[in-house]
């Protein structure tokens, strides 16, 4: 894993031409595929562990590793980056070198976020990544790019700075317990065996400090306003990465930090967060429907779909949680593809307004076919990837909270409405604007991008067990940590074997801890 980031760092110095970037990112992807081979299905804990001292006087380590959750997110990152590089092949004309360097730095930051197992290191990657994204939007974006870039970075920083305070607080708690550390696995185990005691009050505050940062990133409903701006004004590659990977960092953070570190607070807050998620699903879908700008519409679909993911995380059910992780990947690929198509249309017409588009299927049938395909994948057509994720989330939710599932399911219907309508307005009907009549169809380069994405979409739609099996061990371990109520009985069998019950010892410890917390 270290070679990973190192390669990127050195790569950053020599980015002279696009080819090199492409080469680097493809090598990156292939290297990350090796992770898949070496990944041990049965282990719930972190693999490919790397650990060096970084700042010993503050007990900060360079600690990286992956587990069933982060493994695929790393793959998603390395998969989308070459696509983003390819799609910017022709559309970036100025500061080419800087653009691709930024992309690679961004990739390094993202991979770092997903692999970091040291809270400090995680925070460093989390923040460092803002800078390339900020420049990507601000320099190579269009329209109100400066506004969008500033809004993006300020929103994110506001959330994350409180997380920093939370991280420091945890560090002090571990210090008081006699073992000062920023190491995530250590802190989690200290929390679980009672070495660190949190009053429910401070646990709630800490939980809020973390969840705020992640909720802004996701974005969860009232905090989503930065997203449409950032998406709309970003260059295509920026949108692809933003939607494909950056948003996942929020949900990943919830899974990785909020749940295991603050199980009680997570349970308490779950109804509120789930409600917000459902509001987000429906609200964003409704807003998406009335958009007049294609890219803005796609941006709102992200808010809606990420609502599903958040919902899936906070029902504490293995099916829903795996569905949520799966949906993170799906959304990355399908929304990424949607943005790619948008970008290709933009390259030709330099607009996203529906009024300027229309009837594009006639001049460019191939491109529009792929557009339809991406829409279908995003609206969860069976046999395509989106279906599996959404279905798992809904089933898992239904088991515990039927009402939540019913409300959320309306979002799935709405998504069909707005996406197909968008397709209709863009590709079908008559050609209304004269300029649209003689647009060139997809070039071989664009076909390559789209075909690659489509293959992955179909593959993920039919071969989902290949993915979910690798998540099983981790999700179950995570849920065991989170949930004291081991009500896993009603499980859907095709997803995974039944999880192990917690041992007597663990249960006893948890009970003791709960009792202590119950006493004010």
């Amino acid at each position, binding site marked *: 894993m270290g070679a990973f980031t190192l390669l990127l760092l050195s790569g950053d110095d020599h980015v002279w031409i696009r080819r090199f970037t492409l080469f680097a990112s493809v090598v990156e992807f292939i290297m990350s595929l090796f992770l898949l081979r070496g990944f041990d299905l049965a282990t719930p804990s972190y693999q490919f562990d790397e650990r060096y001292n*970084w*700042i*010993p*006087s*503050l007990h900060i380590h360079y600690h990286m590793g992956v587990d069933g959750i982060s493994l695929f997110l790393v793959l998603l990152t390395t998969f989308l980056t070459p696509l983003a590089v390819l799609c910017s092949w022709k559309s970036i004309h100025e*500061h080419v070198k800087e653009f691709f360097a930024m992309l690679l730095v961004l990739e390094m930051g993202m991979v770092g976020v997903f692999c970091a197992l040291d809270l400090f290191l995680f*925070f*460093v*990657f989390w*923040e*460092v990544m*803002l*800078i390339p994204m*900020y*420049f990507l939007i*601000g*320099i190579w974006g269009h329209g109100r*790019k*400066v506004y969008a*870039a*500033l809004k993006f*970075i*300020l929103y994110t*920083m*506001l959330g994350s*700075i*409180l997380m*920093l*305070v939370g991280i*420091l*607080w945890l*560090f*002090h708690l571990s*210090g008081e317990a006699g073992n000062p550390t920023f190491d995530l696995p250590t802190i989690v185990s200290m929390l679980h065996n009672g070495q660190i005691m949190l009053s429910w009050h401070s646990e709630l505050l800490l939980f809020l400090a973390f969840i705020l940062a992640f909720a802004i990133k996701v974005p969860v409903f009232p905090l989503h306003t930065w997203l449409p701006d950032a998406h709309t004004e970003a260059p295509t590659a920026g949108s692809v990465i933003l939607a494909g990977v950056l948003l996942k960092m929020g949900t990943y953070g919830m899974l990785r930090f909020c749940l295991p570190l603050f199980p009680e607070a997570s349970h308490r807050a779950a109804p509120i967060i789930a409600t917000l998620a459902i509001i987000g699903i429906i609200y964003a879908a409704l807003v998406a429907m009335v958009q007049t700008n294609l890219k803005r519409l796609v941006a709102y679909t992200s808010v809606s779909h990420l609502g599903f993911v958040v919902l899936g995380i906070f029902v504490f059910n293995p099916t829903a949680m795996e569905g949520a992780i799966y949906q993170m990947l799906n959304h990355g690929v399908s929304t990424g593809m949607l943005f790619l198509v948008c970008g290709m249309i933009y390259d030709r017409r330099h607009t996203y307004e529906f009024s300027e588009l229309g009837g594009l299927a006639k001049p460019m049938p191939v491109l529009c076919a792929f557009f339809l395909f991406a829409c279908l994948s995003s609206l969860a057509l069976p046999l395509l990837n989106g279906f599996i994720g959404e279905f798992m989330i809904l089933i898992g939710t239904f088991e515990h909270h039927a009402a939540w599932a019913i409300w959320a399911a309306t979002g799935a219907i709405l998504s069909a409405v707005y996406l197909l309508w968008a397709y209709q307005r863009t590709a079908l009907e008559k050609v209304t604007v004269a300029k649209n009549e003689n647009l060139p169809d997809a070039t071989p380069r664009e076909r390559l991008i789209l075909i690659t994405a489509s293959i992955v979409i179909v593959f993920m739609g039919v071969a989902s067990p290949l993915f979910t099996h690798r998540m099983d061990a981790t999700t179950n371990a995570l849920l065991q940590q989170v949930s004291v109520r081991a009500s896993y009985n009603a499980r859907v069998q095709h997803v995974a074997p039944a999880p192990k019950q917690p041992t007597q010892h663990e249960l006893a410890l948890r009970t003791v801890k709960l009792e202590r917390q119950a006493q004010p």
Partner: protein
Amino acid sequence: MFPPLQDLYRIAPELVLCAFGMLIMLIDPFVPAARKRSMGWLAFVGTLVALASLHWAAMNTGSAYSGVFRVDMFSLFVHAIVIGVAALAILGSFQYLDNENIQRGEYYALILFATAGMGILAGATELITAFVGLEMSSISTYILVGFRRTVLKSNESSLKYFLLGSFATAFFLYGIALTYGATRSTRFDVVNQAIAVHGTGPLLILGLGLIFVGLGFKVVAAPFQIYTPDVYEGAPTPVTAILACGPKAAAFAVMLRIFYSAFGNASHVWFWAIWVSAVLTMCIGNFAALVQTNVKRLLAYSSIAHAGYILVAFAAASEIGVAAVLFYLAAYAAMTLGAFLIVAHVGGTNEQRLNIEDYAGLGTRHPWIASCFALFLFSLLGLPATGGFLAKFYAFHSALDQRLVWLVVIAALNSVIGAYYYLKVVVAMYFHEPNKEWAPTPMHAPMFIVLLITAAATIYFGVLPNRIMELAIASARSLH
């Protein structure tokens, strides 16, 4: 009676600085006007020799001159900062002084004298000695601030600085007098013992308050910060760079010594004063900076805000707190020095390009200058992998260690406010089209080297801070 040789070794850096300063004053009249830059090189050599003489001092740690001055890790650390700042600022001044046509020997001599004063402040363990150091550095800087004699603004700021600064030192002196009255000594250790025995009477509290006023002025803590933007704006930019780094570091050093060593037993008295002052300083600095359009003024307000962050660590009143202050001062010196020197360079003759709009398109015109400036700004903002981030992190860490949760939350929110105005400059540099024709002056080699060093230091503090942190912790230990 001649002082023992060992004591001379202990103040070797100050002796060297003063000797070189006087040498420059003596030679200067005989140097033709075209070759005044050689005086600068001489001064630079002086700072290097002073840095080297730190080694001597380090071999003779301990108290000198019957307990008025002390050489320990703490004083060596601060010495290294202030002398390093002086050395880099001298190199960075060459081109500026040429441009402004004020290339004179006394400029360099004054920098050396001021630095010697700061050195005395860093090592003082007695109030009168601290006062001497304070005056020595202040008077030199009063003159330096007004060094652009023909420019009205420079004169104004010099006068302002001088008048208000004199007031502040007068307060400081009053504080010393009252403290002496209350404890019958001006030596830190004796004062502290007296407090332990007799407790804190009203006289002592008043003395402590007046001392805080005097030093608060020098470290630009609110509510004594009013002069800062005007003085910083009017002073020649390299002098502003020195002001923001050197005297501030030295004043914080002596403040640490006074508050921890002399008034350590009265920490319950000054804790809340520092707490309130920290909050005020951060908020005033950041909010006022939001509306600035002049980069020099913006950085002046930012330096107020940073004094606030340092006070957060100060309020921790612990060993880690002291270490955090020291680390912050070092990291802050590197990035601020670099930032102000870039402002000096971009400003050009007569400092005509100081507004944010003047930075428009710098990213495409001068990618290297712009990327250096962006680095410093990101560091001031506190983005990870830069010195500014770790400094802030360390400061917050030390404050949380003492359970000052709310202070840290306020500081954290403040740093987000700060992000807005730093980014405003970055926006101008990279996202705006250049709006004026500007034939760039090529950068001279010394300036380039300074930027290189400060940028490297900023990254070094951010990526491999361990060595410096260990030194800071060792320094903090030596304080007791």
